[in-house]
């Protein structure tokens, strides 16, 4: 890792404290998270790692505001989201979070442009601005010549780029990627990781959920989960703290 490529972090975006999540499975209560505390600042590049069953998916859903914790505090950009209702969470997801999924989750019958426009539609932005921004974002991820192709006319790598463009288009505070290379061959995977690196260098905050150490090595900070608890938060790996963030700690 080249320490020079580490960028100074910004203010605290995500601040969770002692959150737990219980699922009721039949008669049994599963404690997926048993009290996790984590702070993520602007312009961090962090992976969340752990074996299956470690609670990393649950943590990701929590961070992505797809789910609310059973207990604990979750502040997103200073707003407490732990008690928000469905529609408020939808608004946060729309404006603050860009999702990248393992299976891309593109709308199969819509063009790249239309897929990338989707978050802007839900933000209520007019058609002209939408097209402009979606086109620009697709150009940024290197798909300027694939605007009107449908997903089945694109390669796996290109599909994931469309999905990344879709995650970026609303200028979210964080990009939340769940095994983004899981369905790609290693070469294409490396290209996607290069794109994430590029996004990080341009100032985005990236949270990567993966179980592959190879992929995790791209990140500047690694959080290991086991049995619903943080086992190790590898913050030391060349992380530069902004004065404000240091003061906060």
């Amino acid at each position, binding site marked *: 890792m080249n320490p020079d490529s580490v960028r100074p972090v910004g203010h605290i975006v995500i601040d969770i404290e002692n959150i737990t999540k219980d699922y009721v499975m039949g008669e049994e209560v599963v404690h997926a998270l048993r009290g996790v505390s984590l702070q993520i600042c602007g312009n961090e590049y962090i992976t969340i790692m752990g074996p299956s069953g470690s609670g990393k998916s649950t943590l990701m*859903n929590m961070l*992505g505001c*797809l*789910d609310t914790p059973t207990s604990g505090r979750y502040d997103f950009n200073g707003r407490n989201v732990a008690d928000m209702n*469905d*529609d408020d969470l*939808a*608004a946060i*997801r*729309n*404006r603050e979070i860009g*999702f990248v*999924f393992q299976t891309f*989750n593109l*709308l199969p*019958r*819509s063009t790249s442009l239309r897929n990338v426009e*989707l*978050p802007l*539609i*839900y*933000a*209520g932005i007019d058609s002209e601005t939408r097209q402009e921004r979606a086109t620009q974002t697709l150009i940024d991820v290197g798909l300027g010549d694939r605007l009107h192709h449908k997903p089945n006319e694109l390669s796996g790598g290109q599909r994931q780029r469309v999905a990344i463009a*879709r995650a970026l288009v*609303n200028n979210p505070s964080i990009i939340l990627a769940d095994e983004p290379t899981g369905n790609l061959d290693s070469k294409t995977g490396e290209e996607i990781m290069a794109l994430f690196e590029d996004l990080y260098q341009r100032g985005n905050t990236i949270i990567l959920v993966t179980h592959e150490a190879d992929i995790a090595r791209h990140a500047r900070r690694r959080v290991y989960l086991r049995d619903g608890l943080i086992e190790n938060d590898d913050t030391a790996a060349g992380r530069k703290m902004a004065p404000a963030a240091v003061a906060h700690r």
Partner: protein
Amino acid sequence: MKRFLYELTEGWKIATAQMRSNMTRSVLTALGVIIGIVAVTLMGTAINGISTGFDKSMAVLGDDVLYVGQWPWKQVDDWWNYRDRKRIKTEYAEPLNRMIAAAPNSNLVVAVPTSNLIRSVKFAGNEVNNVYVMGTTSDFVSTSTIDCKEGRFFDEMEARGGSNVCVIGYDVADALFPSESPLNKSVLINGQAFKVIGINSRQGTFLGLFSWDSMVVMPLPAFNKYFSAKSESDIRVKVKDKTRLADAKDELTGYMRRVRGLPPEKGDDFSINEQQAFKSTLAPVKNSIAIAGLFITGLSLFVGAIGIMNITFVSVKERTKEIGTRKALGARRRTILLQFLIESTALCLLGGFIGLLFAYFLCLGIGKAFPDFPIHFSVGLVIASMVVSVLTGLFSGFAPAWTAARLDPVAALRYE
């Protein structure tokens, strides 16, 4: 509001794209609604047609004419009280007309006696059965919708003199004289020859109700001479101002009591009828036909709606992951609800539109095949069926759309 319109237009775009990509399925599903809408609209036009048909037949009676008869024009439970009433005689017309002329502010214009019975009419080798033969005076024209397309009605001289002349209806003329003009030809009724001096223009018949098309009118003295034996008589009285029908009725009742010489303590032994009474006895029949018909055809629309509901449920199930993705990207519950409602409504509108086209052409066809049936395809019907389509879409789409809107995003994203 603006936000709602925005969501509506975006939802519409998504819905039409969805329908296009599932063309076969959309059309098959819409078929249920198409059939339903065709059934309902055809029933609607039929009910309209029956209604106008009734009104047209009623118009023959005239809305400014009172009919003095032995029986009232309504269902009576105590028919024995009416059976023994004295018959109405055509001679009453004369004293009635005198009283009308003598009254300074009479609401009545003229009393016209009519006698009638059913006979066959012959000419050369042709014969028409069940013709309504009527004897009356020349004043009859003013109380009826008779309108000669050829020739004329008999005049007062002919009427008083009892000449053997007659005016025939369109169907009678058509049957007896397929290739020549009936004017000045003599038709045989009961072996008696009557010269045709007028042919009434076509009125059309409906559901076997009375029409001038199958009748023959002649002067009363001639009628009495040959047919008086088994005939039925009544007196028609034309009213001056039809908005004051009740006053006219009272006046006429008074005159009739004088004609009959009834002492004050006795009740009327005659009935004064009007078109309205007849209409109101028929109205419940008409309404129950309409309700039953619409209910039965409504069932077929309901079946179509269930089809839409089913396919929307399937669509929600199939697209669970897509719904999860949309939610992750920031779609609110309302947005998802609206999207599926719009989809089901768009399907129903498509079905409604196609169904309406079908119904329109069917109506044209029926109109061509049965010109007598007064079929009506109105703008109101078009609007009504479109509204029904939209309501059907909302009704059938609501349950699946609600399910979709309430999906848990985590579970939906994980769904395979």
